[in-house]
């Protein structure tokens, strides 16, 4: 595996990982009742994932153009990170909505 490919893989892991962390922090914010912070963290997660996605798209386009990407275990791992992060982000959005609903209902019942 060449150095350039290693860098690209690490960018996918980094931004995927950042996205996952922000999504988890968004859930924690919603849990503590800070809806605004939760939304902000979710937005951060989306931006990080789109950066990771950008690197992936580049590789896919290269492959479509005939420039094959060497499949290493590290690359598989990066894809694993990214996919997991995307799932966590989507689930975080749902969980935050639930927390908001709970807060609303509690407010209404008081």
């Amino acid at each position, binding site marked *: 595996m060449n150095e350039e490919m290693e860098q690209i893989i690490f960018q996918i892991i980094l931004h995927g990982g950042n996205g996952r962390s922000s999504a988890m922090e968004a859930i924690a914010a919603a849990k503590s009742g800070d809806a605004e912070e939760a939304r902000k963290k979710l937005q951060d997660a989306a931006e990080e994932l789109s950066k990771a996605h950008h690197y992936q798209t580049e590789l896919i386009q290269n492959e479509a153009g005939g420039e094959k990407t060497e499949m290493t275990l590290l690359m598989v*791992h990066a894809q694993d990170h990214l996919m997991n992060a995307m799932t966590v982000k989507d689930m975080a959005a749902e969980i935050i909505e639930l927390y908001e609903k709970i807060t609303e209902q509690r407010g209404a019942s008081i």
Partner: protein
Amino acid sequence: MNILLVCAAGMSTSLLVSKMEKSAQEQGKDYTIWAVSGDSVQNHIDKADVLLLGPQVRYMLPQLKKLGESKGVPVDVINTVHYGTCNGAEVLKSAEQLGHVS
């Protein structure tokens, strides 16, 4: 110095570990550096002087900071640029700064 790295599964960070080891060796430093998953930190922290988190487990910082405080181990998140470029030398430097070792 014993440097413990934490990430989701301990795989990507393993590559960083080998680069940090290489950098330490070049400087003639005999450090122990290893990576574990977030769930196994409990079993490893007693052997560590500093604890560094990969960006993918940054959300665990409040929880691991608390654990670190109870064990007297400083905890921080790896700089994202250093992580993204897999820069072993720089991460080693920040570990030393965190543990007040040079």
